[in-house]
């Protein structure tokens, strides 16, 4: 494997945040509010704990093989064939989420900004940018992430400040109207998204101060938690749970709802948020795509992943184009199937690997 440069734990954290934030920002309020109604913000807290658990599992596994990625050591844990299969699941997971992101991106752009532009244009442009970033390698991706992510958060904070006067506390009342069940149900999708921070499984070998990785990974979850809380509180506090659940893109609605009689020039500036969010989506795709091709190269025992960039990008975009025929399909998938898929990979398979590795270790010690 070609040396990919080293990143600091802090940069890994930015990577972990970037891999989640863009879509989480956009879709959390609607999906969570659908079940949890006005208690959506409570769901996020529960999801945060679940997310921490997932990332902690992942990092405990990564710690056992500090110089290898999960695709490389899965055969070591499970034996060659099953190990390779599990490795492939990871690789496929990254690509799968990758083309899912492309679809979601095209869905938003086509629904709200450029309805007449074919969606493949958006997928292709996003893919090209991601490929360009992937050519730069891990260090470059981390740098781009940190700048774009800062902008995304700054914009989000600005929007929140502009709508804070219209957020009404009574929209969150009464708490726990229907008991805990809906809150737990609402916590599953964001919980799954939090689990995407388990990408640390791929990054761990490149971190140069590994001792800090646990702390920064949990910090990443915390940052994401704050972000999601902001968008959930903003969306529900502004429009009420029913409107939030009905909306396809509640966070964009939040930006569309900015109303300032004193400064009307700030109204209707949601396209600027779109601009920043495009960046967020781009880095999200890049992070998944990079993890995917890195894993694929490791899975195939290649020295360099770069030759894989264009072909896999082409395949991914092709998959994105053919998958999900309409937006209803896409959204029901993203709310009902997608979270479980990623929980399966990030939590269950990772936990399984960790358990087997632990058992192996015990057996090795005993013999």
């Amino acid at each position, binding site marked *: 494997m070609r040396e990919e440069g080293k990143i*600091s734990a*802090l*940069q890994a954290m930015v990577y972990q945040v970037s891999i989640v934030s863009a879509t989480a920002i956009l879709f959390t309020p609607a999906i969570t509010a659908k079940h949890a109604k006005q208690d959506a913000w409570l769901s996020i807290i529960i999801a945060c704990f679940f997310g921490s658990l997932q990332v902690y599992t992942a990092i405990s596994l990564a710690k056992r093989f500090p110089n290898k990625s999960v695709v490389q050591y899965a055969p070591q844990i499970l034996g060659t064939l099953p190990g390779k299969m599990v490795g492939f699941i990871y690789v496929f997971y990254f690509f799968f989420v990758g083309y899912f992101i492309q679809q979601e991106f095209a869905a938003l*752009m086509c629904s709200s*900004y*450029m309805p007449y*532009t074919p969606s493949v*244009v*958006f997928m292709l*442009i996003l893919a090209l*940018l991601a490929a*360009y*970033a992937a*050519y*730069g*390698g891990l*260090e*470059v991706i*981390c*740098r*781009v992430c*940190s*700048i*774009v992510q800062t902008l995304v958060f700054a914009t989000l904070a600005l929007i929140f400040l502009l709508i804070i006067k219209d957020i009404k506390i009574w929209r969150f009342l009464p708490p726990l109207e229907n008991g805990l069940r809906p809150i737990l149900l609402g916590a599953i999708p964001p919980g799954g998204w939090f689990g995407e921070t388990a990408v640390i499984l791929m990054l761990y070998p490149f971190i140069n101060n590994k001792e800090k990785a646990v702390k920064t990974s949990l910090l990443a979850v915390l940052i994401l938690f704050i972000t999601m809380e902001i968008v959930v509180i903003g969306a529900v506090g502004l429009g009420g749970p029913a409107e939030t659940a009905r909306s396809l893109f509640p966070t964009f609605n939040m930006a569309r709802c900015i109303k300032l009689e004193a400064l*009307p*020039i700030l*109204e*209707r*500036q949601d*396209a*600027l948020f*779109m*601009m*920043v969010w*495009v*960046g967020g989506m*781009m880095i999200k795709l890049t992070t998944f795509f990079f993890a995917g091709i890195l894993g694929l190269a490791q899975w195939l025992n290649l020295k360099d992943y770069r030759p894989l960039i264009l072909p896999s990008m082409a395949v991914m975009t092709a998959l994105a184009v053919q998958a999900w025929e309409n937006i209803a399909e896409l959204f029901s998938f993203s709310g009902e199937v997608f979270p479980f898929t990623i929980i399966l990979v990030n939590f269950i398979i990772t936990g399984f690997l960790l358990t087997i590795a632990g058992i192996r270790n015990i057996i090795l010690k005993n013999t």
Partner: protein
Amino acid sequence: MRKLIKKKLQDLLRNTINWIHQPAVERHDLDRIPIEPDLEINIKRLQEISGVNPDFIIRRFEIGGGIAEAAIVFIEGMVERGLLNENLLNPLMISYRPLKKRGPLLDQILRFALPMDVVRECDNLHAVIDHVLEGSVVLLVHGESRSLVLEAAGFITRTPEEPETEAVIRGSREGFTETLHINITLLRRRLKTPNLILENIIIGRISHTQVVVGYIRGLAAPKLVAEVKKRLQRIDVDGILESHYLEEMLRDQPLSLFPQAVTTERPDRVAANLLEGRVAILTDNTPFALIVPGEFVAHMQSPEDFYHHFILGTFIRLLRWGAFATSLLLPSVYVAVTTFHQEMIPSRLLLNLVAAREGVPFAIVLEALIMEVAFEILREAGVRLPRAVGQAVSIVGALVIGEAAVTAGLVSPQMVIVVAMTGISSFLSPSFDLAISIRILRFPMILLASSLGLFGVSTGLLAILIHLAGLRSFGVPYLAGLTPFHPDDWKDIITRAPLWMMRRRPTELSKRNQKRQVSGLKPEPPDLRRQGGRF
């Protein structure tokens, strides 16, 4: 290392001379040609080398009224005549009478007869030629196989003037000139330390241009210095006429549009950068020095930021960032908003815009491109034309483009404002090179905006960002300070912190010697109470 350099240099020299005089002197010959005791032979050989050049002068005379035959060799116009006549020819020809038994004649001359400060000895002809070309006078004496090299360079030089490209309100009015040794003096005067190392490298097979690599020992990373020297020595061309020749050969990413070295005419800017641990490259015959590594942030800093109150400095920095964004984005955002995102314009402004646009025959994109190109033409014309005419042209241009085009309904007045704002903003950049890259990038951005709206603008920005993130200047990440993020450096990036707060040098540059000054320098009023209430 030094030996290597020497050898390389010798090679270079040899090659060059061979190249010039291929028919007259065989390869390798010149190196071996020692100075013969017989003056006639030496002169003959020199004449062979110099050919028919009329300014290559060999003046023959006799020392001390006929004691020995001698000759001086120099190039007319490169030496100071008065000095030559008063301090060399006068004593030697008229007043000097050699004493017997006081050693060889040349030594005697050196000790008693030559009231000149820098005199070197030299014993082969190629060195003689070399020195003569640099503006020295070489004295050959019959019967001696050595010669004396007298430094008497006196060609026309420009005195340091205020640099035109980097004028300041407050601060030194001195700028570099075309003469390297004056530039070095300007630099030495600002940094009086023996640790200011100025290493000489000669580049250009024909031009023999002196290039000086300057750095402060202990501040500049040795790896960086070595890398700079290595890259300089790689350059093997026939001539270096301007420092940009070097810049283009030194880049990490040769195809990138972004400047990877800071160019400046100001010695104080060079000094400030040397103090940060950077390396300066001074080239003879150009007032423009290069500073490497020239990462992005370095292009956004002007020396004047530090010559005013820090709040003004900060304000101007913020303004500069804003102007940077404006000059890159304003036309494209205008195009995007008016063709894709009309909802973003406040109602009344929108009606205004529509009213002005009605009847304008061109699409906004075309209007923008036409105006931008027209502006570039005007700007270029203003630079190239004779100064007196240039002014007239820019007035006519402004009138034609601004007034007539609007009145004729060819362009909308708003577009004129946009283009003018863009143009003016681009002048705020302290680095001309960075402004150039922005000028060029504006056009693809306009095209992107016209086909995909703000999404296109965003795409373009992301592509630029990815490109910049992958860029390095002499190994330093181009976006150093912004990312990899160093909170300490931010004081000097977005803002200009008070001097007593900036205790550290830029992180990526000076990993070894970070501390710039002692802490606790913040000035405070005297503690009057402790001093008994008065001074």
